[in-house]
């Protein structure tokens, strides 16, 4: 068993942080990589990015949004309990280099994935401008942590309850107008990554996005995670999960993420009825 040593709730309980004992993975993991995690015998294999790792303590930190049966099940696990299986580190690490000025754009739980990359870009000597957003102030996560690793931090909320009233993409434009930017990293919901990529394409700035297609094995064995990038099929678990945002077919990804909607609802409802 992989034991949970620390647990926090964020975003009014819709987002949960688990720090978990997984020494072999903690020793190896680099920013941008993910694990596959399975709670129990009947559980699904769920991919989650490592928001942090501590090779000395031998722990990894995962931050996940509760969206369906599996993540709802994860939420019920307490400190001292744990997961039956964790596999990793998987995927290619982010290529961290000094490009001068880098802009990190994060939305929702994407901020958790963005945080270690932001820190890595800062450590690589970049000037880092970060733009993070959420629907509303009370569900914004990791603001302090992002501020600590950024030279400049912009916060946006869709409802205007905090920071800039509007989308991260609006702030991104003004930042791109004012600065000579070498790289944009955009991680969040698919529509957000799509629009970030659209804008940066107009500005001609290289852009990385982190894709989250449905996965099973995470080792290139099943092809379930295939995405179209530059007209070619790629397996996100081994060729990614990060890709050039200007080449990604976001519309196909959006559709493919809906593959099991009906089944997932059934599974989730069963789980909630059982719990109640």
């Amino acid at each position: 068993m992989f034991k949970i040593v620390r647990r926090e709730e964020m975003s009014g309980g819709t987002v949960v942080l688990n720090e978990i004992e997984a020494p072999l993975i903690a020793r190896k993991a680099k920013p941008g990589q993910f694990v596959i995690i399975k709670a129990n015998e009947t559980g699904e294999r769920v991919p989650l990015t490592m928001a942090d790792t501590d090779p000395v303590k031998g722990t990894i930190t995962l931050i996940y949004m509760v969206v369906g049966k599996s993540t709802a099940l994860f939420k019920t696990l307490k400190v001292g309990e744990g997961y039956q299986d964790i596999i990793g580190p998987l995927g290619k690490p982010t290529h961290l280099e000094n490009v001068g000025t880098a802009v990190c754009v994060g939305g929702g739980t994407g901020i958790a994935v963005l945080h270690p990359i932001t820190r890595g870009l800062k450590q690589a000597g970049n000037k880092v401008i970060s733009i993070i957003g959420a629907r509303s102030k009370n569900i914004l996560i990791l603001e302090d942590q992002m501020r600590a690793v950024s030279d400049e931090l912009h916060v946006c909320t869709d409802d205007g309850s905090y920071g800039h009233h509007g989308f991260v993409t609006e702030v991104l434009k003004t930042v791109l107008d004012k600065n000579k930017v070498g790289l944009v990293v955009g991680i969040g919901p698919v529509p957000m990554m799509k629009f970030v990529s659209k804008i940066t394409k107009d500005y001609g700035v290289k852009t990385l996005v982190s894709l989250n297609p449905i996965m099973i094995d995470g080792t290139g064995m099943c092809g379930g995670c295939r995405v179209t990038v530059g007209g070619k099929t790629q397996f996100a678990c081994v060729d990614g999960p990060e890709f050039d945002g200007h080449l990604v077919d976001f519309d196909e990804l959006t559709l493919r993420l809906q593959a099991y909607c009906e089944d997932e609802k059934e599974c989730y409802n069963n789980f909630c009825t059982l719990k109640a």
Partner: protein
Amino acid sequence: MAEKPEKKEKTPRQPMPEQEPKARARNFEEVPYGYGPEAAVKEAERCLQCKNPACVDGCPVAVDIPGFINLIKQGEFARSISKIWEKNSLPAVCGRVCPQEMQCEGRCIIGKKGEPVAIGNLERFAADFARKSGECELPTLAQPTGKRVAVVGSGPAGLTVAGDLILKGHQVTIYEAFHKPGGVLVYGIPEFRLPKEIVFSEVAALENMGVKLELNQVIGRTITVEELFAEGFDAVFLGVGAGLPRFLNVPGENLIGIYSANEYLTRSNLMKAYRFPEYDTPIIKGRKVITLGAGNVAMDAARTALRLGAESSSIVYRRSREEVPARAAEVHHAEEEGVQFHFLTAPVKFLGNEKGRLTGMVGLKMALGEPDDSGRRRPVEIKGSEFEMECDLAIIAVGANANPLLTRSTEGLQLNKWGYIVADEATGKTSRKAVWAGGDIVTGSATVILAMGAGRKAADSIHDYLVRGW
């Protein structure tokens, strides 16, 4: 002499009792029930006990076939399994999944005139008897040598290496990427053909003998081969299988409702999606299902689709019936269950709706042309013969390639132009010192027994190295 076979041939080959096709096409229980002792003895009596048994030449690991059959004939069931174990450590598996008609049974002398001895069924009988009765001697381990071997992958190749080397007194640890051991035996071959309980009991027997099993360890990611040596392993065996799905590269292949056979079978077998929502992993069930390809993998997929409730399940194959590579028994079972076969048909593209879901496939009729390199007659397109087939699930089962995850992260391994590991055929030695390889990662997709045969040779060579040097 000439009369003898005639006389014996009077007993017909004992039929395998099986579930009714109609009923079994809707459940995941094993299809054949297996022989009872009476049928087994009767079948064993059909064997002529040849002095130069051709059947043994047909078996890649040279099981002493007349030997074990003779023991069944005498009712010595426990001893018969020990005889098989001398050459084959997974007989319950091989009896079920070997392509016997191309191997042992294909060479059986009786088969020249009538039906060959049911060697596979008898092997399965002996193994199942031993497992159920517990009546058999565990082999004894040799004196500990203090040497440590890491086996990467727990498919038939890896399990064979582990079993052989633990017997020879070495310490063995198996590293497996998945959360369950068994390789294709567990994630690929369905329950109705090979109950998983059988595989797990074989693995448990290895663990009882002292083999250590480390699951969830992706070698090349979690730990590298370099680190295995640094940790003190004296030798490493790579048995990671093929494990990279081939797609067709036709338009529309990323529509929802198109799976690689690996994904479809992994969801169903390993993740138990056929028991959704008791198990959490979903699977697209499909009403009208098309499977592309005609190997064992395709048969497994097409038959799984029926069991998941499909109204129709069709095999679409570019070549003709003669070229079908699947085991004869699987084709026969599939037909009995109602799988339809469309030969000489190639996929051109897939059609979808506005939600990105599969609605149909455009196929093209083929005709047989001149034989190609493999001696099979090459299918050629018939121009203008495009037609549409309705489907809401398509499974691509046109083969696998070498998965590069491990080979790319390991230095000094010579690969061939398709990315498979180059290993000496007789010993399994790779270009890197103290590293052996065998099974599908060397030969490309083959069979369980060939993977085991390669494992056996590698184990002998590893033992030799550990006691004598490279």
